């Protein structure tokens, strides 16, 4: 049978149920429970055979549906009230409420979202004024801890990784080393901030750290800091020969 199962489109059992109701063009106030229960259970079976981690909530709703179905099948006990409530009522109420919030979430998404549709004036962190570059004596060479600490700050500023990303950027460490050397040849020195300017990807930031460490080990660059907690700057260890 042809099922258009697209898993990520179901946001839970209620969503699946709403989907089935829409697909069959059913009246939400008068759900044919037998039909919907059958289809719902079929979906659950498929999800199971696909070996998906089925949330318990799906099964709870399945049980609810079966329960409602059985209630509808059984003749009403005569002695109990004249106005026996429709056993579907509670579920319908829940579906309607859920539908409302789905609408609400779509209307939120349709708004002008900051950093997607509209932007505010770029408020980059105020940079410390560039230190006196000419006077290299002011610069002290730093150790690994200062460097790692600086990277830690950068990583911290990156914040949480957004969702899952399949990283297509397969920059190797060697590439990054070459990039840094190219940048340095052009400018003689780079501040730490410049080196990581605009780097949002954790992986790339880490590559940068590894590249810097490798370059220091190879004695191709020197890393200096203008006093404790000052700006960190990278220098070419050897001035490039002219020609």
């Amino acid at each position, binding site marked *: 049978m042809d099922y258009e199962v697209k898993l990520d489109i179901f946001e839970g*059992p*209620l969503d699946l149920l709403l989907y089935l109701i829409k697909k069959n063009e059913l009246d939400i106030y008068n759900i044919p429970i037998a039909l919907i229960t059958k289809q719902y259970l079929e979906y659950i079976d498929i999800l199971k055979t696909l070996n998906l981690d089925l949330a318990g909530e799906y099964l709870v709703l399945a049980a609810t549906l079966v329960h409602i179905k059985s209630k509808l099948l059984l003749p009403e006990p005569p002695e109990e009230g004249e106005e026996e409530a429709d056993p579907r009522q509670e579920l319908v109420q829940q579906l309607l409420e859920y539908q409302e919030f789905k609408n609400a*979430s779509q209307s939120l998404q349709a*708004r002008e979202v900051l950093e*997607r549709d509209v932007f*505010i004036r770029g408020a980059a962190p105020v940079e410390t004024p560039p230190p006196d570059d000419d006077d290299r004596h002011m610069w002290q060479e730093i150790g690994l801890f200062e460097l790692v600490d600086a990277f830690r700050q950068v990583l911290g500023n990156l914040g949480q990784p957004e969702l899952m990303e399949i990283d297509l950027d397969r920059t190797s460490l060697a590439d990054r080393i070459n990039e840094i050397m190219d940048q340095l040849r052009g400018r003689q020195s780079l501040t730490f901030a410049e080196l990581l300017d605009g780097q949002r990807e954790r992986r790339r930031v880490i590559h940068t750290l590894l590249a810097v460490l490798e370059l220091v080990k190879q004695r191709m660059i020197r890393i200096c800091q203008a006093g404790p907690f000052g700006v960190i700057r990278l220098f070419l260890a050897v001035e490039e020969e002219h020609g």
Partner: protein
Amino acid sequence: MDETKAIIEGLIFASETPLSIDRIVETLQERNLSRQEITIRIQELMTEYGLRGGGFCLHEVAGGYQFRTRPELSAWIAKLKGIRPAVLTTAALETLAIIAYRQPVVKAEVERLRGVDVSRPLRTLLERKLVRMVGRKDVPGKPMIYGTTRKFLEVFSLKDLSELPTMGELKDLTK
């Protein structure tokens, strides 16, 4: 342009977050301006920027005023900034909508309405600072109560929570 208006424009321009009328009153204390006098000038500015049809406009968001670029320019600016919009998943968005409309609300209620566990989307929303804990409910277990933040208003370009369409209005929209 009258000087006060120019000052207000400058203040809003220089402010990193939406600037409230209260802050403007406070800043311009020596001039002894009423809230109304300030509001009138801001309205004028908003109209002027609107008529100008330039790259940005003055908006009322999150209880203050802020310059924001025109939505039509989003592709260019995203390119300049090299950012991809941080998209919220459907689960996170639905959770956010429920919290926005039902706040203050406990997690169990959000889960009842969505019919599914919301731990993950809720964590995302807390991390993104769109939602915050506003207290604990005085029932056994003392569950956390959640509500939306100022940042929520800023991100979704809302003046305040009352600007959210009512459930009834939403129904009409989908009809």
